[in-house]
């Protein structure tokens, strides 16, 4: 434990140094050096705790507001610590070259200091077990992230995105404080251990606290109806901040969920179903929005909502396993879910870094304007493709491993036959749907940005990513490959944390198959695939080596005057898909059409997919009355609406009567 305290002090010193040192180079050096030292110190404690399941506790005397501050490092906290700090350090390294264009004019020291503070807040969140101190860490992370987002504060849009984030994260904070207040009133203590004993007593208070906690952590991790701040903040922030927010900082929300699951003990089945439906909704809605964005980073932001949803499905499955006393589901659900958190952090940071490299080289991330970057930026293109394949959960990359474990749980024989099994099979189909759409989104993002020919002649490409940015991307790319090709190693990383969840099972239970054996098809499929590709390429080489490679223009199907503008853009690629889901994906359209036989004025069409939740919220806030009036008019005129309303009223009446115990 003392190592962590020293690491925290080291990070604080690093932050102070990056504020006071004279030039940006030395500020970056101070920040990176302090983070690396802290990382080594933390890993010395976290890795043994993670791999051997140590349980370290320490109590610091503290006078106010609680008598002391308890620190506790179990394998779950160690798991999160083990990759959060290195990834933050990688983000800081990436920032060195990313922020270089601003070097002469801006003081980047604040950014470096805030990155240090973020790492410091991880130390607090993942180890402290006293509610007040935990909340302090929680707030430090939120405020640091906000300040990091508004780096380009002169832009009004970016300030708005920053405030949007700040407000959302504080709404979540209120829910968390409310939950802690409930627990404090029950126990008279601020200690998580005492909270745990209160949470284990079944009753209305337990249920209410569970809902408060899930809402709060859901806001932090951007689950579906609470996600609106995320795409805004992610497209506004510098690339390394987007990457860290999406990959690392938000994972604090999922950590909170897991930490309180451990305290909750054995959940009731409805909690599992609630978590599963909440997460499935997030996954589907998040991925639907990825197909319609024209801003690359906004699209990646929505895919975070999708991926926390997938991890949440794993946790929900684990909840159900705990409630049904099925260790197979507990192990598969939590292994898949926790592993997906790590996988998401690895490939999402990679994708954001690659998107940042595109932005740095072209000064735009608008899918409608980019094209043909693969030849100018081969490193970035290759790494983006790697991350994209991983995020679509395609074998043999790391996203597939965790999703496979979740599938294995959903299609498991341990699920009770009947309605439960039917529901979980449908959920597996839903996950397949999410996978299919995310493949579409990947192909769209990669194909439109990097393949084909440049569409907009006004976009200049200054070259591939500089050294420090490339280093961060390569490390993350290596992570994608390592976790995907050696799933046994990946599972080893989450084995101890999952054991903590399996220990929550009470009563007799059958032994579960270890996930390492479940993952066999993945190992085989990956190895065979690589072998087959190598073999076929060798065959192809044998066949074609005799003649020189002939090149020609793309066949235009007889059309003689092709132009790069004729290529499929992001919007045209997804238009057919979006047309199927037009009720959810709302487009705002601004257009000025050509007029007259010889139009002289410039005409344009500008379509933009807006967030339905946000749109509706603003609609209700701004013109609630007119919306209600319009609805009312529709109801009185259209028969389908009035019929639907009548049915809804009937259902409400019947359910009220039924819950009241029938008509007396």
């Amino acid at each position, binding site marked *: 434990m003392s190592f962590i305290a020293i690491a925290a002090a080291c990070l604080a010193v690093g932050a102070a140094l990056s504020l006071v040192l004279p030039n940006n180079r030395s500020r970056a050096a101070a920040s990176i050096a302090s983070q690396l030292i802290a990382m080594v110190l933390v890993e010395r404690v976290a890795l043994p705790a993670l791999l051997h399941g140590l349980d370290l506790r320490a109590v610091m005397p503290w006078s106010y507001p609680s008598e002391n501050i308890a620190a506790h490092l179990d394998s779950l906290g160690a798991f999160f610590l083990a990759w959060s700090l290195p990834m933050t350090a990688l983000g800081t390294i990436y920032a060195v070259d990313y922020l270089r264009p601003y070097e002469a004019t801006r003081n980047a020291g604040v950014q470096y200091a805030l990155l240090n503070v973020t790492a410091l807040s991880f130390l607090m969140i993942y180890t402290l077990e006293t509610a007040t101190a935990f909340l302090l860490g929680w707030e430090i992370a939120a405020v640091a992230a906000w300040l990091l987002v508004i780096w380009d504060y002169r832009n009004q849009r970016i300030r708005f995105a920053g405030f949007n984030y700040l407000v959302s994260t504080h709404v979540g904070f209120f829910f968390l404080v409310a939950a802690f207040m409930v627990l404090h009133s029950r126990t008279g203590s601020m200690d998580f251990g005492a909270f745990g004993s209160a949470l284990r007593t079944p009753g209305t208070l337990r249920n209410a606290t569970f809902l408060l906690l899930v809402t709060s952590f859901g806001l932090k991790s951007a689950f579906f109806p609470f996600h609106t701040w995320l795409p805004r903040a992610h497209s506004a922030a510098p690339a390394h901040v987007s990457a860290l927010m999406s990959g690392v900082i938000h994972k604090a929300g999922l950590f909170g969920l897991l930490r309180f699951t451990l305290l909750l003990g054995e959940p009731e089945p409805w909690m599992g179903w609630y978590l599963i439906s909440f997460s499935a909704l997030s996954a589907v809605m998040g991925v639907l929005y990825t197909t319609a964005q024209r801003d690359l980073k906004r699209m990646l932001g929505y895919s975070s909502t999708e991926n926390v949803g997938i991890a949440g499905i794993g946790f929900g499955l684990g909840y159900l396993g705990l409630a049904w006393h099925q260790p197979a589901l507990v192990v598969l659900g939590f292994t898949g879910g926790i592993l997906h958190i790590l996988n998401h952090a690895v490939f999402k940071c990679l994708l954001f870094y690659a998107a940042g490299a595109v932005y740095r080289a072209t000064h735009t991330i608008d899918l409608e304007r980019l094209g043909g970057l693969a030849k100018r930026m081969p490193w970035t293109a290759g790494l983006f493709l790697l991350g994209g394949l991983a995020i679509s959960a395609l074998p043999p990359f790391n996203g597939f491993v965790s999703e496979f474990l979740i599938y294995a749980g959903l*299609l498991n024989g341990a699920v009770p036959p009947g309605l439960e099994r039917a529901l979980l099979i449908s959920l597996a189909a839903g996950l397949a749907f999410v996978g299919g759409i995310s493949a579409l989104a990947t192909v769209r993002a990669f*194909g439109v940005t990097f393949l084909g020919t440049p569409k907009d002649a006004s976009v200049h490409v200054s070259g591939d990513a500089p050294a420090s940015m490339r280093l961060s991307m390569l490390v993350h790319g290596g992570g994608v490959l390592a976790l995907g090709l050696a799933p046994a190693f990946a599972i080893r990383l989450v084995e101890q944390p999952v054991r903590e969840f399996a220990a929550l099972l009470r009563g007799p239970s059958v032994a579960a198959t270890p996930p390492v054996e479940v993952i066999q098809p993945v190992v085989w499929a990956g190895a065979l695939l690589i072998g087959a590709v190598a073999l076929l390429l060798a065959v192809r080489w044998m066949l074609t080596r005799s003649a020189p490679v002939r090149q020609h223009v793309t066949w235009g199907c007889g059309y003689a005057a092709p132009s790069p503008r004729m290529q499929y853009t992001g919007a045209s690629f997804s238009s057919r898909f979006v047309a199927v889901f037009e009720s959810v994906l709302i487009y705002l359209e601004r257009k000025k059409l050509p007029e007259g036989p010889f139009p002289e004025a410039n005409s344009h069409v500008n379509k933009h997919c807006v967030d339905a939740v946000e749109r509706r919220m603003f609609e209700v806030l701004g013109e609630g009355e007119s919306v209600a009036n319009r609805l009312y008019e529709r109801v009185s005129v259209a028969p389908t609406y009035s019929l639907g309303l009548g049915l809804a009223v009937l259902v409400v009446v019947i359910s009220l009567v039924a819950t009241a115990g029938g008509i007396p």
Partner: protein
Amino acid sequence: MVIHVAVLLGLPFLLTGIINRVKAIWGGRKGPRLSQGCFDVLRLLRKQPVYSSVTTPVFKLAPWVILASTLVTGLFVPLLRDTAPLSMNWDVVAVLYLWGLGRVAMMLAALDTGSAFEGMGASREATFGALVEPAIFLAVGALLATSGHTRLAELVHVGVMAPGRVLAAVGALVALALALLVEASRVPVDDPNTHLELTMIHEVMILDHSGPDLAALQVASAMKMTLFAMLIAGILNPLPASVGPLAVAAVNVALTLVIAIAVGLVESLIARLRMVSVPQLIAASMVAATIAVLGTAWFAGGAR
């Protein structure tokens, strides 16, 4: 194992041959030899490829990734009896995602040419692929749930199970049959004979491929259809395993050929759907699969 691989490599040519022959006979023509597909591929293998100057290595690599992923899935799918060379728990997930990898490689190669036509094909493939995947999952999931199995290979015996599970089996079969038409790019979803129509999907994505690359794509596409057909045949197969592996395998192959004839008849009799109606066809497949899943719940609920 050896027979499995031989069937995996040989049957696709026969299958496309049968479909083309059925279409020709129905149209009053004599039709090509049954082995014509084999000669086409051999001829393509001897040619030198031409690459578009726009393309990147993605374009050269894609056909071989597609073929490799299809070959690997061929080792997981039971072709002849209730075993496959590689049969493991939940291999169905690996198979579907490997097909997904092939699909992504295909779309990326199409976008790599920078051609408006190929972009169009990729866009359609992406849309229909994303919609049909859950239907396949529901159908296979229903079958796995009724039988309580977790491997694709064990689905072969689903056909001989208790009458109470018929609803699930029939729903899943309908769903899979419709999915086959979508996945194999057949009429009424796509027309494998046209190359320059605005209504096509698969053929438009391979416009710029040539030589061995084109051969790989055609083999992969025929192989994927064969795998689908043999999966359906395995489910339809009424023989129990006790009859002996040889009889089961023979019936499987026969049923596959019947499916090929059925596909040929469908192609001869039905016109291509308008592109906007394809999602409705996929929705029909989804509904059938949902009925299958609900059927499993119903009968399991009754049995309790």
